[in-house]
């Protein structure tokens, strides 16, 4: 599809809000020149990927190099979300972080939590079976769900249970015996220097020389190599075999497909309600399930299907998803362009996520965050609105300067034209008629005060638009 109209640009804008963190007007027009299909291809298989870079960040933010605290990985991640040319990869990391939620207090170690996110970056768009094997070896996960304490002859079921319940199949699709047999298969999957590392984590000890990053360790002598029966299949299974059997299940395909729909298309109810609440769009789930099996559990192939589907392009799902705090903050900062170089202010921007209810690498529980409208309560709504408004009010931000310059140069000078120009600069934003009426009324009132300069008046318009129901959604 080659983009030819405003409506087509709105398609691209929708894609970039969902597959990324939104885009500037100029970026959307550039993508529009290439067309929708080429833009999807570039999201799935980007070339010449750039972001601010590890060296730049570590030079100025030393804690983002050592990562002793749990704030550092989230702040580093925000830099990536804000400056990367590969936003879908960061969205997929957020996707998996929400499902395989891992954090404090059991893992009081920013570097190993960050290493898990880096693992998502390497495997999050590959085969699902590969991802689950890497997850099972991930040191943070091993400590988070106690698999270091899962021994031959004395199993700890915590990881085996969550692998089935929360990470792949969902409740109702396996038995208690399957949990036990899966746990037996993962005995011996632990971390190196278990005693010392777990003790330091429990004590939150960074003595004497800072934290030592963990590594996975397989102990043959502690692995139960006897015969096991899992989901009807029998053999001397190890962890990789359990993952293979899990990935063969239709329940797994449906579980991951529904998560994907929930994250990229439209809000579903929280996961605990899924066993007795049908999907919003069963046909969409069927399509994703089909691709899951046809592609050999390939996540990227499922995304390809999703972004090209009619259920994704349907105007009925547009602006139906509440942006997560990470999506909102990263999206605003990409527009304002504040972080053209490392700046200490990123700490405050990272803290905003926490105040809005999403402390990255510190989810509320193993279930992760409930998405959708649950992001909004009276406290977080105020935080969201104040944050967005404040950022667009900073006339020193290069992105805000650029937006104002473009709007001043726009030929649309009437109050309605000014509103259109502002909404375009905010990422070809479409708004409801009620929102538009309110913005136009504000524009007719000279942005609240006739004393304002043109730049200040436009900034006030941007600030007001950022507080709207429409901007707060994707």
């Amino acid at each position: 599809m080659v983009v030819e109209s405003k409506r087509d640009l709105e398609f691209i804008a929708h894609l970039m809000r969902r597959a990324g963190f939104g885009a500037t007007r100029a970026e959307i027009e550039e993508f529009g020149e290439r067309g929708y299909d080429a833009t999807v291809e570039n999201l799935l298989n980007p070339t010449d990927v750039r972001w601010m870079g590890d060296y730049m960040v570590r030079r100025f933010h030393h804690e983002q190099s050592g990562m002793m605290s749990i704030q550092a990985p989230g702040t580093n991640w925000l830099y990536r979300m804000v400056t990367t040319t590969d936003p879908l990869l960061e969205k997929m990391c957020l996707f998996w972080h929400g499902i395989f939620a891992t954090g404090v207090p059991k893992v009081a170690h920013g570097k190993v939590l960050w290493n898990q996110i880096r693992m998502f970056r390497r495997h999050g768009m590959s085969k699902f079976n590969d991802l689950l094997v890497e997850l099972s070896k991930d040191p943070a996960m091993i400590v988070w769900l106690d698999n270091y304490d899962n021994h031959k002859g004395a199993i700890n079921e915590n990881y085996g249970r969550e692998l089935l319940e929360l990470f792949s199949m969902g409740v109702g699709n396996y038995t208690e015996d399957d949990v036990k047999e899966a746990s037996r298969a993962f005995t011996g999957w632990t971390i190196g220097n278990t005693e010392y590392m777990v003790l330091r984590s429990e004590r939150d000890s960074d003595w004497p020389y800072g934290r030592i990053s963990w590594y996975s360790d397989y102990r043959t002598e502690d692995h139960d190599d006897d015969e096991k029966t899992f989901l009807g299949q029998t053999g001397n299974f190890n962890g990789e075999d359990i993952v293979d059997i899990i990935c063969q299940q239709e329940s797994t395909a449906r579980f991951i497909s529904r998560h994907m729909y929930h994250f990229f298309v439209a809000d579903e109810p929280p996961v605990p309600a899924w066993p007795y609440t049908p999907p919003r769009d069963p046909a969409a789930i069927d399509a994703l399930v089909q691709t899951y099996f046809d592609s050999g559990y390939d996540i990227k192939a499922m995304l390809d299907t999703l972004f090209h589907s009619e259920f994704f392009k349907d105007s009925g799902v547009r602006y139906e998803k509440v942006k997560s705090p990470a999506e909102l903050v990263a999206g605003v900062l990409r527009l304002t362009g504040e972080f053209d170089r490392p700046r200490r202010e990123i700490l405050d921007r990272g803290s905003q996520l926490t105040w809005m209810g999403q402390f990255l690498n510190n989810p509320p529980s193993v279930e992760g965050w409930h998405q959708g409208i649950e992001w909004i309560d009276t406290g977080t709504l105020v935080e969201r609105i104040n944050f967005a408004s404040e950022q667009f009010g900073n006339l020193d931000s290069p992105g805000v300067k650029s937006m104002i310059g473009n709007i001043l140069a726009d030929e649309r000078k009437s109050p309605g034209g000014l509103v259109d120009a502002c909404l375009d600069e905010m990422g070809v934003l479409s708004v409801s008629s009620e929102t538009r009426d309110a913005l136009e009324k504000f524009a007719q009132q000279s942005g609240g005060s006739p004393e304002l300069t043109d730049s200040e008046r436009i900034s006030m318009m941007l600030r007001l638009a950022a507080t709207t129901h429409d901007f707060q959604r994707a």
Partner: protein
Amino acid sequence: MTTVQTKAGTEFLSYALSVGMSADSGRGCYYPTDTLIGKNGRLYVINRSLEGLDKGVRVTMCDIDSEYYGTFGSYGRGDGQFVWLTSGAMDSQGRIFITDEYLHRISAFDSDGNFLFTWGKHGSDEGQLDGPSGIACDDSDNIYIADTHNNRVQKFTSSGIFLSAIGSAGDGKGQLSLPWGVTVSPGGDVYVADWGNDRIQRFKPDGEFVESYGEPGNGNGQFTRPSSVAVDEEGYVYVADWGNERVQVLDPDGGFVQMLRGEATLSKWAANFLAVNNEEGDARSRANLEPQIEFFDPDDPHEVSSKIEKYFWSPMSVKLDAQGRLYVTEGNRHRIQIYQRTPL
């Protein structure tokens, strides 16, 4: 051993000891960025601290025997306070000058840590600063500052009067990219860790370009984002090869002499901590701290250093004392590894 033999078959430098330990207040270090060596042998360890934990920002005073003499400075914007303190230098009067790359200023203290004065103005005009990082004093008490985001080194009097500038943005001879460490050699030449260009550059005191050492890479004599440079009386050049998590020694002609990867042992403070906290000490004694690990990327030294404690991890500064000993300050390991010339 990770050191490389010299041409003569002996190691040029050998490990001596470590000083420091992670601590967010009082005795200890917290993300140290530099160690200033006083003429009285006192060490002034400049602690950037963990971002968001204000109390760790300070200068820790100790010596090579791990005697502790207290701290000075704190987080803030007032006199004697810091936000992003980075490097330090001492003049002939024993006054300490410390850069702050967030506040774009230099703060001066006496050798006991009493605040004296501050100067510096944010900007890109002559004499203004944008992210001052490395700092060095010459024999006449002039001060050279790596003016990072302005891609130059500026020379001031100790009271902050602008004298001259070296370099401009770029990667040509004499040009700089986000310079970090700067030092004045015993002969008076100015050496700059040209961080973004992966090289060390040498200038005459008047700013005339002399020579460039190194090229991008991780081989012998190559650098990745060097952070600091020191030069001894004989002209040997010591480089904190920060991006490669190592230190390199070059001969006076720039030829490769030795690479150090780090050999830290327990400092006195660390040994004391583990003796008192014996549950951790016992668990540590049973751990293998030099394991054979299948790294995801064995060529990523940052990742390797995060898992092998004795290796350098974020070596930010190299300094020489009067005896020719080399002090390597490691940000992420909160310690200083000290090396000495191997007797002939």
